[in-house]
């Protein structure tokens, strides 16, 4: 108990040191257009999980915590502090003097309403699954709420930064209804809503009374442009100012244009080669640790990062993302050593090599075909003949993944559901009985359970370090790299891409 309180005060201190910068000095001006590949399904932040929707939501709504844009750790936003009262209770102190765009004051009631709305099964919010650890949300006074949890919950700060868990206005929603709110959103954020032409554009206007100070941009437009080539043409002709998901081969053309530049940064999504170590999809040579180690020695990950991704990737040595809590950089991966790989295969009883399936899927992994081909090339050099099975459809891929049908190797990726914590990748991939677990053991189950049932960061780091040493030794995966988001921005703007893939156009300024 005492430790929790000490911890909490440390957290409080950390939070208060990271108070965001003061208001901008000039009045908002000009118009910025951002191209998005698809539209948001709704303007109601609680009723979808679409990335494009989250990007728009973040400009209209504020979350309780935000992320520091250098460390990506949670920092105060609408909540000035998050303090653990005891193992099952957290106290949030809220910022004072904040109002919604319709004039409604932001108070503890708004926070309780927002939580209760997501938790209400009748509401059918797709976010609900992330909040089921909450027992109740209680108003203490006008600017204080307490969250009571059903079990110790170490990821609370992570959940409070969730891009689409914006604080919503209770009175407005009760008066106008959900259907209206989905089309005419009202938040406390840096921009107010003007117009939504579905499938076409969302138009926002600077909130000049924003509590952090008005944004530099007067009018912000999110335009739906599905085709990447068209997005690039619009950028180069001045029709739009920021685009995302730029293909690596288009970088030189944009850099040479003189009108726009590239801004790229590492993101949460990691890419790795999963091996079916349990033989979950049927009998396979991969149940032998020597075969798994051989494959680890055979693949030259650094060369793939350089040659296929143009260096736009960060090496992961354990499969975990180097940015998240719990990653242990001290754990070293297998060295690229084809001779050693051949030796291990011979020892395992495959002196003449063997055949394995490589599953790949379309979506999420940048240059997936080239990466798969590179892997096949490396493996053929040590005598592993690869049978490629490509899923053009993500739904099919996931169904096969869950249905124990991904035999052999799978070029997989994981986006952490935007949670910057090791628990978000390993539990679901290594705990017995989880839908994506193809490598399991009693020992790993115990570590994973310990990691999610204590709020002490030191204990958690310790258990995750042990876990990573174990899975690297057992060579369950071939850890590869964390991807980059590649965006391009007009030379008129100061703007940088974000590691959580949420575009912060509200922080952009004119040059």
């Amino acid at each position, binding site marked *: 108990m005492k430790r929790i309180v000490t911890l909490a005060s440390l957290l409080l201190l950390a939070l208060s040191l990271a108070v965001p910068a003061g208001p901008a000095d000039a009045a908002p001006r000009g118009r910025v257009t951002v191209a998005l590949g698809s539209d948001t399904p709704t303007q109601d932040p609680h009723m979808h999980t679409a990335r494009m929707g989250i990007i728009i939501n973040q400009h209209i709504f504020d979350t309780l915590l935000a992320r520091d844009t250098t460390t990506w750790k949670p920092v105060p936003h609408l909540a000035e502090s998050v303090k653990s009262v005891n193992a099952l209770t957290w106290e949030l102190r809220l910022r004072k003097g904040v109002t919604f765009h319709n004039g409604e004051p932001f108070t503890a009631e708004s926070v309780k309403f927002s939580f209760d709305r997501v938790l209400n099964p009748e509401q059918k919010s797709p976010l609900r699954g992330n909040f089921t650890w909450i027992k109740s949300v209680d108003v203490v006074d006008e600017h204080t709420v307490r969250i009571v949890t059903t079990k110790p919950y170490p990821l609370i700060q992570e959940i409070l930064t969730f891009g689409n868990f914006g604080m919503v206005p209770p009175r407005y929603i009760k008066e106008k209804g959900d259907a209206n709110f989905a089309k005419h959103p009202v938040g406390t954020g840096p921009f107010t809503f003007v117009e939504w032409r*579905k499938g076409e554009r969302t138009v926002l206007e600077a909130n000049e009374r924003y509590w952090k100070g008005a944004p530099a941009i007067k009018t912000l437009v999110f335009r739906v442009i599905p085709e990447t*080539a068209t997005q690039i043409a*619009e950028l180069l*002709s001045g029709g739009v100012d920021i685009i995302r998901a730029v293909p690596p081969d288009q970088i030189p053309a944009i850099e040479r244009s003189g009108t726009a530049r590239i801004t790229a940064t590492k993101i949460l999504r990691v890419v790795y080669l999963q091996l079916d170590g349990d033989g979950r999809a049927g009998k396979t040579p991969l149940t032998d640790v020597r075969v798994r180690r051989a494959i680890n020695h055979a693949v030259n990950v650094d060369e793939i990062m350089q040659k296929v991704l143009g260096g736009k990737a960060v090496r992961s040595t354990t499969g975990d993302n180097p940015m998240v809590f719990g990653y242990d950089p001290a754990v070293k991966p297998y060295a690229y050593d084809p001779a050693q790989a051949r030796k291990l295969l011979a020892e395992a009883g495959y002196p003449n090599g063997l055949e394995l399936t490589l599953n790949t899927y379309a979506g999420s992994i940048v240059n997936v075909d080239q990466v798969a081909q590179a892997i096949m090339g490396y493996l053929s050099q040590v005598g592993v003949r690869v049978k490629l099975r490509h899923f053009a459809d993500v739904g099919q891929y*996931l169904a096969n993944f869950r249905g124990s049908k991904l035999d052999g190797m799978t070029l997989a990726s994981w986006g952490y559901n935007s949670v910057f914590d090791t628990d978000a990748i390993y539990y679901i991939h290594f705990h017995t009985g989880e839908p994506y677990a193809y490598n399991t053991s009693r020992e790993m189950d115990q570590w994973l359970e310990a990691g999610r049932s204590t709020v002490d960061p030191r204990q958690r780091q310790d258990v995750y370090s042990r876990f990573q040493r174990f899975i690297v030794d057992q060579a369950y995966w071939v850890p590869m790299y964390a991807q980059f988001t590649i965006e391009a921005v007009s030379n008129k703007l100061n703007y940088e891409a974000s590691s959580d893939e949420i575009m912060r156009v509200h922080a952009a300024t004119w040059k």
Partner: protein
Amino acid sequence: MWTFVVHRLVRAVFVCLGISLITFTLLHVVGDPVLLLVPQSASDADVRLLKEKLGLDRPLWAQYAVFLRDAVRGDFGESLFTQESALVLILERMPATLELTFAGMAVGLLIAIPLGVVSAIRRGSLTDRLCTVGAVTGQAMPIFWLGIMLIIVFAVQLRVLPASGRGTLAHLVLPAITLGAYLAPLTMRLTRSGMLDVLTQDYIRTARAKGVGERVLLFKHALRNAAIPIVTILGVQFGRLLGGAVVTETVFAWPGVASLAVKAINTYDYPVVQGAVVLLAFLIVLANLLADIAVTWLDPRVRLDEDHA
């Protein structure tokens, strides 16, 4: 004539029914939207629960029966992703698609008919041969590539037209040219062969012998007769145009039904796909019907009441 129209409309209902059955089966056999709807970390129990809620655990025929029962009342269900009425979503985007399709058709005809007529009159000349080469090139050119090239030239290099989007008349120019160029080659060649056919007929010689002016001869006597196959084919081409609209809408970020349907197909949003396909199929049947009616006006010899086989 009315018997004909009623017959054709009844047939249209069966066509739409058949199409809905095919789309329904194909969509349900190849994919499953549930895994795209739940967070990736959802448990198998969550997945089963959602499947039950959406009625996707029931046998296919039972699901189709429910779909049919609602569809006849104009209810295609709600989009799985936005919980909005699929019909409303589609109708909201219909004007954009119709605008693009008709503009594309107009551009296509404006290119095809004059060139077809000129080629026929100057058969074997350099103009004729250039037109033939142009038509073959046009037919071979992927619509997608043409769209991107037009954007690069007119929006990026010359900066005279917007690259994408819908709003002003200027926004319509490039997509309409792209779609028109898709329609033009076949129509041009039909015009050319139709004109060649008509120009050798006896009544043209007679008319010419009577001293009818060349312009009246061409446009009143020859083109009107040559127009019959063109109009018939236009009805059929309407379907091709909607197909071309799928690509054109995507390239030019044109907010129409076709791009909505493509997105819905990718996410297995059954209600939206079903609604869009049935509605578009109905439009195509309607276009063919209108083409047939137009032919009777052009060619008094065709009596529709005898022609409903």
